[in-house]
């Protein structure tokens, strides 16, 4: 599957793939969605794809403090000129995308399997993806946190969460079993 500059070659046990952001019009105004939902026999995978231009094309990674950004970062879509993006804004955006998608599907009775959420951020090295993952994890209700805080939960909002670049995705046995990932040339 090709989407937003990425190519995913999903494993054979894939049940269904939805390019979910194309359904954004189904959501209410102000709601956001993840890019892809991949259904596997025992779980759903929510995929959010971000791609930042590299340094050679006047790039400064928005995760790095408050550097000026010239990028196709979706956060900046409505800003007239390249603006300031901070790790907090990106983290909140990733959280909202997950929750809005989760809510929409929950209301429609589609959350019948555990969900893992992966954000693929090309253009950022592993140090930056680690920092972003830690930041977003703090504001997401991950299963392990829910268990820790209250053992009466019998329904979990989010099982796993990861932020990776393409290299880390392909090196990880945990993610590789869902699909291999590459960048469109």
């Amino acid at each position: 599957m090709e989407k937003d500059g990425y190519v995913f070659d999903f494993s054979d046990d894939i049940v269904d793939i939805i390019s979910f952001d194309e359904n954004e019009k189904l959501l209410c105004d102000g709601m956001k969605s993840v890019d892809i939902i991949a259904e596997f026999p025992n779980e759903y995978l929510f995929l959010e794809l971000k791609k930042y231009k590299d340094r050679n094309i006047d790039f400064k990674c928005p995760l790095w403090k408050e550097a000026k950004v010239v990028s196709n970062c979706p956060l900046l879509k409505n800003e007239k000129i390249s603006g300031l993006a901070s790790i907090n804004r990106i983290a909140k955006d990733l959280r909202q995308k997950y929750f809005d998608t989760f809510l929409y599907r929950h209301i429609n009775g589609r959350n019948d399997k555990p969900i893992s959420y992966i954000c693929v951020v090309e253009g950022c090295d592993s140090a930056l993806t680690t920092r972003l993952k830690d930041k977003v994890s703090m504001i997401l209700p991950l299963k392990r946190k829910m268990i820790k805080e209250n053992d009466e939960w019998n329904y979990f909002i989010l099982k796993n969460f990861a932020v990776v670049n393409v290299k880390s995705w392909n090196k990880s046995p945990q993610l590789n079993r869902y699909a291999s990932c590459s960048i469109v040339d």
Partner: protein
Amino acid sequence: MLTEIKIDNITAFENLDIKLSKGINVFIGANGTGKTHLMKLMYAAMLVADVSSKKTLDQILQNIFLPDSLGRLVKRSLGRGSGSFSVYRQDDDDTPRYMRYELSSLGKSQTINHRIWTKKQSYNIVYIPVKDMLANSPGFKSLYEKRELYFESIYADIVDLALLPPLKGHASKEKTILLDLIQQIIDGKVIKKDEKFYLKNKQGNLEFTLLAEGYRKLGLLYSLIQNGSISSGSILFWDEPEANLNPKLTQQLVNIILELQRMGTQIFIATHDYVFLKELELSKKKEDALMYHSLYKENEEIKSQSVENLNEISNNVINDTFDSLVGRALGFEWED
């Protein structure tokens, strides 16, 4: 400025040829890949570039590396061996200069092209070692001169330079900018009294021994810029500038280094620090001269790769470490 170094069978290196940037040269690589050795060899070569230098290259190398015998600097192998290193330089007169130092494992040496290499000119060559010396400077200079102290000479050299009094006359615009930058970070000026260093500000004078180690490093830089040891045309070797410095200060440190380069100082840096490299990448401008030299082991031999952009390095041990962390974290946290 130095333009190239070639090494054959000396210390950790078997065969190495590195073309250098006229601005900033950043050496990265795992421990034991020879970053410091490389900088020390170039430093030694530049110390004899001044024709009035009182020491021979043999003596300088002995004092800088402190081997049991000079021949130990030849890369260790079975039986007798020999090694050499060549350094290339271009001064303001645009004349390419080059010297080659050959050494046998028995300690016999010869310097080729010594006459061409030396010039009637004093060069400002500075080597800032990892460990701070300013706090220990009182008495160190005289003790080092009179006694056999087992300290690499780079420590005595840096104390000597830092103790030089400030230059007379008005400071140039660039110099004033740099001194102001440092003054803002360390919140004061550096002054010297009887070989002791103090930070002077509104609260009075603070002994360097009571000052945070990271600030001492910037204080040293302040003294070296103030007394002209670091200026346009100088060559600065700085081993792990990030050591003892909180990453919060790295951005300012990088700004200082970039300003030095813009002023015309050639800079050599060895680093292990991701934040330092990232700040450098984000703060450099197109017109800044900067090269990254990655040193890595391949089949037990040290190789190098020189590139202008950080993301072009194929053997970046720091990024590899973060990649490995991501993989391990996923393996640890991901639930089936």
